[in-house]
Structures are given as structure tokens and as C-alpha cells.
């Protein structure tokens, strides 16, 4: 370890410390609250503060994902789950669970124990900063012609991990399909219970929301595609874009009803998309095999220029990621909503 380096106590470090303190406070508040609605909102706040912290740590891609997934879609899904169950948790009886307390304490102690041998924060000579990480920074541009190193590591150098992660998302979606179903045509009851949106009363109620969301939804989708295709140059990529586009559909469903959303984006399409994305990703890998190289080798995709092949491969797998992520988000959302009558006016 490099003992000469001492983390400077500059503005960024102080901001980091303040943000971490805020995370602690939000976390404690979540533990103490019984109102589930407040807890869900605070969980969103927790994610946003984390995202801020990641920005301050220069991990902009991670921050982007955290904001889109943690603060965005998972808040909506948790609200959906809340509407299925209850708005308030039963007040927890204060019981002393010493064994649990001891385990938590021991875990914390183990982490504290390790602190003294950790490299100083920001040390340019620490192992993660000096070894493979540095190599990626040097090689990414000549190897792949992609300025955003996060994208080239995620999609090419460690592209196989990302195939696995996309499959994790598919597996989660598959689980929701199997356990909750997707509503759709099987659930005939849903149609009966759906709110009549041509009803003048309901329309009057949501006029502002309906008009604004009609304006917003195309822009959100457009922004999603920008995030997708700009991922090579700046923060972004298939994960974030998939979540953003899915959130446009979810917004549509919230305002115009799940049935309207299902008419626009049918459950069958979503189900096909969930599987298709992984197949596109895996198929890009197979293309490498067919062209006579190793699995997931993009260099051979363009016989004339290896870096261009990399670009092609990365674009192809990012589209796969986009399709699976977007579809699975909707699978989960449809799965939740098929279990309940539509969100009523009272819930707004």
C-alpha cells in the first residue's frame, strides 16, 4: 500500500461526507417509519442521494442507472406493490433480537477491521487505480474506438458478464411471469373492472395530467434512444435507455389506464422482447464463433477493421440489453397491475 498518499480534505471529499451522512439519515428514517407510502418515497430519495454521490465519485454511468432504476422504476413498482397490500405497516413491537444485533455488529466490525489496510481514498497508485483499470483507460480508444471506457469495459472487455446480467434480468422477469402471470387475455376480469376513460367525469379530473403526459411521453422515448445511442460517447447505454423507455409506457399506463397501455404495447410483445434481447446478445457472441474466433469476439465482425467490428458488436449487444431491460420492466409492471383493479381516482 502507498503510505505517502493522504486523501485531501477538499470540497469534493466534504460533499461526499455530507451525502453519506444524508444516506445514513434517510436509512434510519426508513427503518423507523410505519407509513409505507412515505417509506417508498424515502427509498426513492435514498436512490437519488446515492446517484448524487456516485456523480461526485465520477461514476456517472452508475449514477445514471441508480437514478433511473432506483429512484424511477423501482419506486413505481413498490407503489404498485403497496396498492396491492396496504398503506401502513403494522407497528413493529420493539423486541430485542440480540443474535441479529450481534451479527450486524460483527459484520460492521469486520469491515472496520479492514479499513486500516485499505488504500487511501483517491490514491492514484492503489491496486484498482493502477492495474487493470489503468490498462482499460489506455487501451479502450485504440481497441474499440469508443471514448466512454465504461461502455467498452461493460460491453466488450467484460461483455460476458453483461450477457449474464441481462440474463439475470430475464430470469427475474420470467419469475414474475410464472408467479403473477401477465394479465392479458387470460385475465378477463381486468377488463370489467377497468375505469371507463371516456367518462367525462374522469376526463375532467385528469385533464392537466393527460395533456402534459401526452407531450412528455414522446420526448421521454426520444431521450431514451438518445441515451441508448450516445452511450458510446457519454454516460448511458442499454440498461438506462431500457428503463427510461419502459417508464414512458408506465407513465402512459398510469394516466390512461393499464388496458390502454396493453393495447399500445401488448403483453405478448413484451414477452417476446424479454427473450429476444438475450437472444440478440447471445447471438452476437455466436456470430464471433461462426466467423472463426472466440465467443463474443467482435473484432471479426468487420473483416477489414477490428475496432469497427468492436463498435458493431457493442451496438448490437446494447440493443439486446435495451430490448430485454425495457421488456422485463414492463413484464414486472404488467404482472403487478394484473393483480389489482386499475388505480382509482382516489389514489391520486
Amino acid at each position, binding site marked *: 500500500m502507498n503510505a505517502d498518499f493522504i486523501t485531501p480534505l477538499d470540497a469534493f471529499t466534504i460533499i461526499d461526507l455530507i451525502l453519506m451522512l444524508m444516506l445514513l439519515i434517510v436509512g434510519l428514517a426508513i427503518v423507523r417509519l410505519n407509513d409505507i407510502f412515505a417509506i417508498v418515497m424515502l427509498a426513492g430519495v435514498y436512490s437519488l442521494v446515492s446517484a448524487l454521490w456516485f456523480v461526485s465519485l465520477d461514476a456517472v454511468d452508475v449514477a445514471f442507472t441508480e437514478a433511473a432504476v432506483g429512484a424511477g422504476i423501482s419506486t413505481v413498482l413498490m407503489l404498485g406493490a403497496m396498492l396491492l397490500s396496504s398503506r401502513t405497516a403494522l407497528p413493529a413491537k420493539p423486541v430485542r433480537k440480540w443474535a441479529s444485533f450481534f451479527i450486524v455488529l460483527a459484520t460492521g466490525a469486520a469491515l472496520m477491521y479492514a479499513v486500516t489496510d485499505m488504500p487511501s481514498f483517491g490514491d492514484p497508485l*492503489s491496486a484498482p487505480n493502477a492495474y487493470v483499470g489503468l490498462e482499460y483507460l489506455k487501451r479502450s480508444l485504440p481497441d474499440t474506438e469508443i471514448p466512454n471506457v465504461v461502455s467498452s469495459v461493460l460491453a466488450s472487455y*467484460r461483455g460476458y*458478464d453483461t450477457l449474464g446480467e441481462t440474463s439475470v434480468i430475464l430470469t427475474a422477469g*420470467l419469475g414474475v411471469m410464472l408467479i403473477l402471470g401477465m394479465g392479458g387475455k387470460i385475465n378477463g376480469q381486468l377488463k370489467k373492472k377497468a375505469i371507463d376513460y371516456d367518462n367525462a367525469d374522469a376526463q375532467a379530473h385528469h385533464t392537466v395530467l393527460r395533456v402534459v403526459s401526452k407531450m412528455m411521453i414522446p420526448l421521454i422515448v426520444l431521450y431514451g434512444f438518445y441515451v441508448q445511442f450516445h452511450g458510446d460517447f457519454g454516460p448511458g447505454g442499454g440498461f438506462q435507455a431500457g428503463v427510461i423507455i419502459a417508464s414512458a409506457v408506465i407513465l402512459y399506463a398510469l394516466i390512461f389506464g393499464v388496458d390502454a397501455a396493453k393495447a399500445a404495447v401488448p403483453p405478448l410483445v413484451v414477452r*417476446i422482447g424479454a427473450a429476444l434481447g438475450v437472444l440478440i446478445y447471445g447471438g452476437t457472441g455466436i456470430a464471433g*464463433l461462426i466467423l472463426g*474466433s472466440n465467443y*463474443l469476439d467482435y473484432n471479426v465482425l468487420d473483416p477489414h477493421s477490428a475496432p469497427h467490428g468492436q463498435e458493431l458488436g457493442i451496438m448490437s449487444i446494447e440493443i439486446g440489453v435495451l430490448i430485454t431491460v425495457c421488456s422485463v420492466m414492463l413484464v414486472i409492471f404488467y404482472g403487478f397491475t394484473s393483480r389489482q383493479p386499475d388505480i382509482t381516482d382516489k389514489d391520486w
Partner: protein
Amino acid sequence: MTMAMALGMIMPILTWAGTHAPPLVVVTPLLAGPIAVFLHKGRLAWAWALAISILTFVFVLLLMPQVIQNGHIAYYMGTWVPPLGIEYRIDSLNLLILLLVSAMGVLSLVFGLPLVENEIEESKRGQFFAAFLLCLAGLLGVTITGDAFNVFVFLEISSIATYVLVSMGAERDRRAYVAAFNYLVMGTIGATFFVIGVGLLYMASGTLNMADIAMHIHGHSDNRVVRAAFAFIVIGLGLKMAMFPLHTWLPSAYARAPSMVGVFLASTATKVAFYAMVRFIFSVFTPGSPFEGAVFDLVLAPMAVAAMIICSVQALYQINIRRLLAYSSIAQLGYMLLGLSMGSIAGVAAGLLHLFNHALMKGALFMGVGKASLRQGVTNVQDLRGLGKTMPLTAASFTVAGLSLIGVPLTAGFVSKYYLVVAALERGWWWAVAALIVSSVLAIFYIGKMLETMYLHEPPKITKSKKTAPQAPAKTSLLALGPLMLMAAANIYFFFDASLPKGLADAAAKALLGGGAS
């Protein structure tokens, strides 16, 4: 003439498949899973899953000669040379596990058709088999990789698929949802601990490739970051493998899962987590350092002995057969852990051999219960009454596997227990030998209880009119008998000729402990 031509056609394909077998082993089921989602006809999805699992098994077989010839083979994903890219690295150790998992995938599917048709709603079968294929891909992916973070990714694929598969038992027993949820919570905590450990390793070494990490942290076993990483990884994988006392999720999960899933999980899931633990402890961390030695002697060995005795006693009191077998599994994991904690070549080899044999016996036992539940609605020990008369072949196979579990001579279980005793004596661990004997005596009691009910009690008179499970068609039921008897036969075969698993286990233990990083 035509033979030569055909051979000329096949040979290049075989060579190509052999070269690229490492990714194909995992990618085949991984990509076949999403396709299975759309196979709505249950039988079609089943046939697809079976064909894919056989293909996967063939790819593993193609790896075998290469590994035996070269000691180990490496495959670079995307041709990126590690530590830049992800490496697949196969040696005797993971070859043994790959063979086990892929073979059990095939056998569970052959066995499982009538059970799935009995237990899973028709419209869900396509997705059920998709989840099964993803689970298979995840387990194989954990086993085959040489990259620490890649282990985490595929561990999550297999775990999430497993939670889903367990919850599908809800049509037989609604409590499967609760079991799956508990498993999810515990499994996720385990995954979190594991990934914290991997993060700490990255902090200490700056790399994620296992062999590379090992090289960088060699001689730094007094580094506190490395020590914390060790603790987090052992606990994380301990949760996944149901190491005592982190096993509480397992009995319900195994008992309430669909029968086919129970068979597959009992013989593979915890084994793969155990493999990952062995891999990390010996290939990544520095074996023989004082810190590791202390953990072996003061934590792992006592936990192993506690599991062997306490969980065997708990098995005695179970009414539900699957729960009984699940508790016995935790006890048997104690045997493997005991072998590992000896830290000697003989001990680790014996532990690995027991892993293989235990998969054979538990696979056969869970198959036996599944088949009996299909025909006669058996769930509890007392339901076994007279099974020796009503289902003689199933009862006989169950008996063989049960005797193997006890460790009776002429069965595979005897072989691995024998080597465990030898290894314990070599280290002078008399107390471990005593624990082995006590645990085996307890096994005589809980297996004996079931065998006694099977053979010495009259079959219940009202079998037909009772609200038993619907009688499965004789044809598919016969299909289930094949794998069951094969597994039972394997329990005997590997007593007489244990050269394959023993050879691989010995080579693996030597590579792990002999030359540092394998």
C-alpha cells in the same frame, strides 16, 4: 467409403466443438432458456429442454479428454487476454462438478416429465422449463469460470431461477411461496456478502481474474482487506451451500419445491456452492496461511461436526420424507466441509469424492420419493407403508441409495466415508472420526425408519379411494423409473470402480494444494 466420408465430415465439427466447448457448455442452455418461454405445449418444451441438456452434457464430455490430457484448459471470452477479459478455466476440479451437474440435468428431465405434468399447470410448463434451463446454465457458469465476478453473475442467474422453481411447488403445497421467499432473502444476503468479498479482493489486487488475484495477494495473507474478503466470501458461499448454521432456508425449500426441482437441486445446487467455496479458499486465497488455518480449525471443522450430528438428529424427528432428506443433506454437507477443513490433499479429495457420491444418493432418494408421491401420494414417512410390495422396484432403488447414505459396504457412500476416515486419522483428528461414526449411526436410524415402514408394514387398504394424487399413465411413470434405477445402480457401480470420480478428486486436490494457484 461412406463411413470414411462421414467421419471426414464429423471430425472437423468435433474439433471445432471441442475448442469452443467451454463457452458452449454455458451458452447453450442460457440461450435455449429464452426460446423455451415460447414453447407452449408442455411436452414440446420438455423435449426441447431435454435435447438441450443432452447437448450440454455432450459439450462437457468433449472437455474431458482435453482436461485429462493437458491438466487444465483456458478459454478467453472475446479473445481478451486475462486480466482484461473473462477467462474460462477448466481443470479436474470443475470438470468433476460440470460432469455431475450436466448429467443430473439430463437425468432430472427424463425423470421429471410425469411429475411436472402432475404438478405444474400446463400453461406454465414452457416457462417452467425455461427457468430450469437458466438454472442449469447458471450452475454450469459458476463452475466453469476463472473469474471472480463472473461467479457472482452466474450464481445470481442460478439462484433467481431456483427461487422461481421452488415457488412453483405452490400448486402442490401453498407454503412453497413462503419457502421460496425465505430462500430468496437468505440467498440474497449470501450473494451480497459474496460480492462484498469480491469487491474487497479487487481493492487489494486490482483484478478480478482468480489466478491473477491469487498471484497478487500471495504473501499478503496478513493484509486485513484480504482477511475481511475471506470472511465475507466464506459466509456468503456458506449461506448458498447451507453450511451449518446458515442452513435454515434449505429444508423447506427442498421439501416444497416441485419433485423434479427437488431432485435437481438436492444433487447440484449446494454442491456448486461448495465447489465455489473450495475454489476460492484454495485457488484464490493462500492455503496454509496461519489465518486460514485458524479458520479451518476453529470455525469450519467445528461447524462441520455440528452439522453432522445436530442435523442428523433433526432428520430423525422429521415426518415429511423430503424434509428428512433435506436435513440429512445438511449433515452430509458437514462431511464435505470436514474434508475441506482438514486442509490436506487426502481430506480435500475425500470431501470432493463425498460430494460426488452424495449427489448420487440424494438424487436417487429424492427420485424415489417423487415417484412414490406420483403413484401413491406419498409425502410423509408413514405413507411409505408397504411400498416394498406395491412398488418393489422403486422401493429397491430407494433402499440401495439409503444404504449408500449410511455408508454400507458395496455402496459408493462407503468409499467416500472410508477415505474421509483415513484422511482424518492422517491428521490425528480422532474426534472427527468419532463424529463420523455417530452421524452414520444416526443415519442408520433415520433411513432404517423409512425402510422398516416400507418393508415391514402392510400397505394401507384404501389406496385407490383415498384422495391420492392422480394416477399417472403407466408409460410416463415407467420413464421415471429409468433414471431412478440408473442412479441406484450408480451407487453400487462407484463402489467397485470409483476411478473416475476418485481420479478427478485426487488430481483436483493435488492441483489445489500442491502447486499454489492451479
